[in-house]
């Protein structure tokens, strides 16, 4: 009798740890890295960017503040010796600005392929390699199959993959663990959680400008 109850207890505990189980507001154990914005971390399951998964940041024009959202994390992870890859950025990542934000430049690799296929290929290679803990990518073209490949590569390499995409893709189905929509308001940068695996979507956080 007691043994059976113990077994049942164990099974329930295992179930409760499963990130797929929706449990209201309690966050299941998800491995994540702090974004560096404490208020924002509290909204995310695991408390930050999910590891071994894709994050999508959907925003309308370049220059809305999409990089400032990730810079504190990039600074912390490069100072700890982690490598960061920037694949297919739309403009030149400006070294003085990154350095001023605390990013250790020798740990950053910029890859600028000529083609959309090259961007996807390079991002997949880097995510899978286990050499890059974090890969930021700006794919020019993505369908769901390609997103799934990137998601699998991030799982294999236990890497944090962050994709920057245009806001019009918000309605597209995506295997990403976390999807954010950015918009600029009078108060600052408004971040809406469109989807988050193991957490509650629809919540908003506003970064002061």
């Amino acid at each position, binding site marked *: 009798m007691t043994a059976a109850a113990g077994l049942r207890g164990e099974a329930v505990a295992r179930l409760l740890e499963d990130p797929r189980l929706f449990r209201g507001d309690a966050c299941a154990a998800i491995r994540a890295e702090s974004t560096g914005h404490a208020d924002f971390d509290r909204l995310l399951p695991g408390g930050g960017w999910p590891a071994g998964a894709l994050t999508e940041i959907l925003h*309308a*024009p*370049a*220059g*809305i*503040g*999409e*990089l*400032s959202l990730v*810079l504190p994390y990039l600074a912390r992870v490069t*100072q*700890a*010796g982690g*490598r960061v890859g920037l694949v297919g*950025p*739309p*403009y*030149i*990542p*400006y*070294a*003085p*600005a*990154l*350095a*001023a*934000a*605390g*990013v*250790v*430049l*020798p*740990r*950053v*690799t*910029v*890859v*600028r*392929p*000529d083609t959309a296929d*090259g961007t996807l*290929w*390079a991002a997949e*290679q*880097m995510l899978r*390699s*286990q*050499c890059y803990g974090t890969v930021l990518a700006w794919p020019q073209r993505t369908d769901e199959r390609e997103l799934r490949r990137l998601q699998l590569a991030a799982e294999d390499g236990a890497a944090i993959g962050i994709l920057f995409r245009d806001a019009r893709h918000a309605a597209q189905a995506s295997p990403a663990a976390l999807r954010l929509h950015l*918009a*600029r308001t009078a108060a600052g940068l408004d971040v809406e959680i469109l989807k988050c695996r193991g957490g509650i979507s629809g919540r908003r956080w506003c970064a002061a400008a």
Partner: protein
Amino acid sequence: MLWLCLLPHRLALEALTPPADAPLAVTERRGPRRWVVASTLPLPAGADWGAVQALHPQLRAVGRNARAERAALESLAYLAYRFGQPVHLELREPARPGEAPVHAVWVEIAASLRLFGGLDALLAEARAALGGQPLSCRIGVAPTLEGAALAAQLDRPAARDRQELWDWLQGLPLPALRLPAETLAALRDSGLRRAGELLALPRDALARRFGAGAIGYLDRLTGRAPDLRPAVRPPPRYRRRLDLLGEVDSAESLLFPARRLMQELAQYLRARDTGVERFTLRMRHAGRAPSALELRLLAPSRGAEHLFQLLRERLERTALPAAVRELELCAEHFAAPEAPQPDLFGGAGRRDAEWRQLLEKLIARLGADAVLGLGLAADHRPERACTTGMPVAGAAPARLPPRGGDDGGRAPRPPWLLDPPRRLAGPPAVLGAAERIESGWWDGAPVARDYYTARAGDARLWVFQDRADGQWYLQGIWA
């Protein structure tokens, strides 16, 4: 002295790439005579081409390519370097119609026997090394060059000293000796059958009868006279031309010759005890200018497989402008590869090597310009304050960015830069005060600009007005 002789007995055929898929004969021509030197079919040596063609109408013939033979033989000589020094090679052209060219490489191994743990271990190592390259070789060991060549040709066990060689020569049939055919015929007519009988004859009588050449050969064979030849040395620059059998029109079909080139390059690098930093593969086409692929490595390497994987990654991405007739590999930049260091604190060295291999893969496919590391430069002009170059290796410690003396108070910079700046049609809606930058009058690229932050929709832009002409430009984006 103890010589190991490598006798590539099918070199005339195996020097050709890619290997023939149909029956093929290599022929030599002198005047009206054309005879078979080597063939994929078992044909008698020196068979007349006309007769062979009548018997085997499907057989294709190509002329001998002495240049390809020499290049392949040199690569074999570089391979021999790993067993000792000096190394010699010989390419003897056929002296008369019906003969085949003779190719041989020798390496002195007496000094390296202890290193390899005895002759048997060395020979086993040599057979393993020969198995990994395209030339099929016979090997022989003797204290003289000519003796070793004979031992290889007749597939005899090793003769370790001159006495053993002498004893072995006694029973050798005369025609095996590398003497001119007319000398051999005269000796046979005199009733001599064995080399021992010839060696027992008085030397001065032999010299009078057959000339100094024959007696010189016998003396070099038995070790009575020294055998002086120039040693092969790996040249400071590596060049290897590879004629292709016919034209190759797909990059995939180039993989086979590419593998061979990388194998031979690795043999050369090992002979020089160095690694290659970058190399160029030039492809010659029929009726148009040659095209070239340049490959750069992050760290010097000499692994044949590693080099081939890089080249393959690149070849598979390359569209050939036309069919390829000839490949030429050039390498001039060498450096000793880093020895793998044992690592005390969990494989950081191994991870670094994996990282380098990943970058090389990216570079091979996307081009060297597409993979960049970031750096800072002390310059007030925004477009010159950052540098891009090859990513740097090494486990950089946790380090804060360098702050120059006057850097601390510098105004903030946007994370996106546009280079060159984009000209704006009219003045934008600027916010705040200007930052004036005037610099560069000393090096021919002077700037005099007022920088502002401007708002355009939801985005904030970094713009400047050129004070020389009053034009507005967009140079950065606050993201």
